[in-house]
């Protein structure tokens, strides 16, 4: 967000800004006095740094010097010596350049040097991740987290795309899970966050302690709700609507022990969990089929049993092709022309 605002201001300064960008910039400036201050300070800095690059004054004189140089007849004796000097100079120059270049690269690395660790868990796999503060994260299939190695900042920041169960060690430094525009802030608790960017829905469930759920609206973070144990909030990130209530937090985080529980959940959402958990693809030959709501529980059962149970509960048939499953109406078989 911050970089985006600098980008817009720079484009404005260079007069390369698009109409759309201009509108965006106006809205952003009107949002807060701090933004206006950032805008005017940035413009001032850009103007001043432009003034730093002056215009040459002696172009004619320089050219006259060059002209004189290129018009003089070559002196055979001197050229040879000159050429050697040139070579020596070139060699030194090369050495200098290489070292300065290496140094520049080093400098550049030094200050973009917050090192991040990224952990990915492929579909069908769970990963247990130990964070620098010795908090534990169980990462579900098809999920990834990213965090600064060392947690040196003022907060312990983690980016999450997917589902994960966090068991956070208590510290004065807030622990923040960022998933798109929704952030979950805690000091030390255990909770489950489900935020696959493909689903436009973030679900936070608390097992122990107190958790603050924040949403970024127009660049500002606002508290949505504090959650206490066995409370759950579901936020639709497309329209910003949310619902919260009591739930069995233990069942929600059961997936870390291969126990999957679904309470009145749409079959398409169940299918997505199964995809991540078992590493398969599940398609509906008719999207309508995915809307049926089911309540069921799978404790460490095989994929085949899962599919059979779902098929019985939903009244749908399924066809298996390798690790691809198709839900169909009972009198049909399924397949895909894509594979």
């Amino acid at each position, binding site marked *: 967000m911050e970089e985006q605002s600098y980008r817009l201001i720079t484009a404005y300064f260079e007069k390369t800004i698009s109409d759309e960008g201009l509108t965006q910039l106006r809205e952003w400036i009107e949002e807060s006095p701090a933004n206006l201050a950032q805008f005017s300070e940035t413009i*001032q*800095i850009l103007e*001043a740094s432009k003034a*730093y690059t002056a215009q040459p004054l002696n172009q004619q004189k320089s050219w006259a010097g060059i002209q004189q140089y290129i018009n003089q007849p070559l002196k055979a004796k001197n050229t040879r010596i000159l050429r050697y000097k040139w070579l020596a100079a070139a060699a030194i120059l090369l050495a200098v350049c290489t070292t300065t270049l290496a140094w520049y690269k080093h400098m550049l690395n030094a*200050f973009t040097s917050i090192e991040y660790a990224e952990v990915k868990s492929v579909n069908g796999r769970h990963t247990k991740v130990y964070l620098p503060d010795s908090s534990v994260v169980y990462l579900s299939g098809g999920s990834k987290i990213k965090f600064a190695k060392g947690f040196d900042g003022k907060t312990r920041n983690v980016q999450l795309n997917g589902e994960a169960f966090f068991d956070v060690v208590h510290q004065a430094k807030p622990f923040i899970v960022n998933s798109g525009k929704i952030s979950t802030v805690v000091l030390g608790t255990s909770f489950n966050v489900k935020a696959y960017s493909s689903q436009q829905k973030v679900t936070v469930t608390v097992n122990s302690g107190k958790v603050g759920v924040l949403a970024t609206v127009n660049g500002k973070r606002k508290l949505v709700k504090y959650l206490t144990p066995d409370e759950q909030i579901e936020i639709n990130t497309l329209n910003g609507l949310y619902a919260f209530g009591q739930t069995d937090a233990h069942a929600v985080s059961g997936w870390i022990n291969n126990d999957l529980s679904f309470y009145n959940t749409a079959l398409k959402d169940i299918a997505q969990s199964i995809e991540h958990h078992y590493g398969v693809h599940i398609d509906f030959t008719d999207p309508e089929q995915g809307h049926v709501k089911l309540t069921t529980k799978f404790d460490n059962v095989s994929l085949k049993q899962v599919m059979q149970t779902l098929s019985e509960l939903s009244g749908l048939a399924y066809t298996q092709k390798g690790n691809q499953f198709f839900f169909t109406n009972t009198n049909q078989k399924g397949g895909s022309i894509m594979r």
Partner: protein
Amino acid sequence: MYLQLSDEELVGLLKVDDHLALENLFNRYYKSLCQLSAVYTKDFEIAEEVVANMFMKLWDTRNDLNLQNVKGYLSVSIRNASINQLQRKKLVVEPIDEVAHQLSNIADELTPLNIITGRESYNRILKLIDTLPTSQREVLLMSHVDNLSKHEIAAILDISVRTVETTLYQSVKKLRLLLKDSYNSAASN
């Protein structure tokens, strides 16, 4: 007719000792190369000298040149020559207490009257620019060199366009911080 020729065609003409071709290249790039050189030499007179010397060298080596990208070649050569110039003059190493001294001077000049006059805040920014980390300063100033795009800056510095952008934003951010600090220390004095 020379105006319509590409840079590469002009360099080709240098091989048949065409002075006009050199003059056209000179007119095309003198200004922006001087600006680029000044980023390092911090002195426009020296910058003009460096650029003039480079055109003489270009003439001397005209028979060995086979350039795909003349503008890129000239820019990199000027950057190298300028850094080289600094090393020779030993201007590049500024002791840290020197920088700290400069910074305290900046704070000294901050009377309320100075703060409200725009000219003064300009000058303060100009001084603060020289206290930026080298690569931030370099990218910030290079972004104001005439006709030098982000892509060309990235090529000259051998970094990605993305890094150029990020470094630029970081430099502005850093300058805002430095400015705030200098205001604050002025207020507390």
